[in-house]
């Protein structure tokens, strides 16, 4: 009897990759924005 294939299939690989890209962009913007705010507020 052939073995059943139990591997998961990513049905929406594009959305998966887009989510990773957005996450990376968000992290960069978030830390840049924090640094900017620390300058604005004069945090040493």
């Amino acid at each position, binding site marked *: 009897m052939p073995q059943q294939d139990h591997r998961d299939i990513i*049905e*929406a690989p*594009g959305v998966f990759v*887009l989510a990773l890209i957005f996450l990376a962009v*968000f992290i960069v913007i978030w830390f840049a924005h924090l640094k900017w705010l620390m300058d*604005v507020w004069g945090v040493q």
Partner: protein
Amino acid sequence: MAIFRTDALSGLKIDKATENLVRWNVIAALATLAVGGLLGLLVVLTRWPSVHLLPLDYYYRFLTLHGIDALLAWIIFFEIALVHFTSAALLGTRSYVPWLGWLAFALMLAGGAVINVIVLMGGADVMFTSYVPLKGDPLYYLGVILFAVGALLGFIVFFINILLSKRDGGYKRTLPLGAFGMLAASIIAVLTLGHGAAIMVPTWLWSMDLIGTIDPAAYRLVFWGLGHSSQQINVSAMVAVWYMSSAFIIGGKPVNEKLSRTAFVLYILFINVASEHHLLVDPVFSTWHKIVNTSYMMHLAVLASMIHAFAIPASIEVALRKQGHTRGLFEWLKKAPWGNPAFSGMAISILLFGFLGGITGVIFGTEQFNIIRHNTIAITGHFHGTVVAGTTIAFMGFTYLLIQYVFRREIIWKGFATIQPWIYGVGVALLSIGMMSAGSFGVPRRHYDITFSGAPFSFTFDPSIDLFLSMMGVGGVLAVTGGVLYIVLSFGSIIWGKKIEQ
């Protein structure tokens, strides 16, 4: 005479009596958005220091009415249209109590008219929150109560239709997902309007001097059970609209329907308690009380939004791949129907709601961050990212479907319709980012004159706020341009659009 018709375009079986309720609620929604949007233009041109358009009293008056018309009336009229639409079209059920639907509509219309007249006459410059001890004309509170009772009856019509449709075999085990989402919105609406009654009825009596005092802290707590929870009705209805738009336009089906339904249940259970983020700097409530609601419960509602945020784009990708757009990772994205305003409205709404409204809501809603952002214009930027860039654009996109399915008219000026969601989206994004950036420099929200001219002490903001407030102003003008286009296209299509033959 047949009480149902089969729509030629969508194939939906639609109850004719309910269809009229959908139509009139959409028309009322469009009218209130037109007024609310115009007032929004006057308000933003006043907050833009280079223009500073309105005199003091008109600024607060128009800001009050902008909140009522654009935030409450437009959105709730449209949501009542949506619950009637899901009854008539998704459940394919007849309207069991159409008279109650018309009574609800009449009460909302009367309440909305009373509020507009009283505020314009200067009887209630109390802003959207109407915090006591600010006191407005008793008719203002009566208008709010009439509107809220009407909305409650509208949602009750939906509950009755759902129950009796099940009895008559309209659906088998559970509701279709779009109707399930609208049911979640309706349950949140009942909780919300209950809070509204609990605080607005005593405040109305107080405004007539029948009650001596209303405790301001109790008012604030219960008011936000109405004020913010009404935005949670919007979130749930907006997500239901995303699912329905994906299904109608490209045949999208949720990748895991049970997960999407679970996410709606999370909204019902946890989204209301998160309203307490409005009170994070309020000295009356304990830190434990604030943190358990906004740092724990809120994230269970955020989890629900994250589920939808992946489920809906995934449903779109799967549907477009099934249509043959399978090359590489992103061919489906390139081939998506971006020229269809119903699709682009949905896509822009998902993107802007997530990145402008959602993320900032989570950040500003935590105790530590709230302490430096509270009552700055950053908060105004956040909620324009949710209710305008999110809910309003989603509803605008869905209007283009309703005009074809329910009004049975073709959209006029198709070229303008294609660019309308983009103009509106870019405008609101600029407005929201401008506000949030200016808020980072401490620019207060609601304030008429941030230069404090004539005050005994001067305060100077960082000069960069001029750039951000100009961005807000330009964005506001652009958004209103997109809004005017939407109103003209919608009314124009309803009146002059070519009839779609059945």
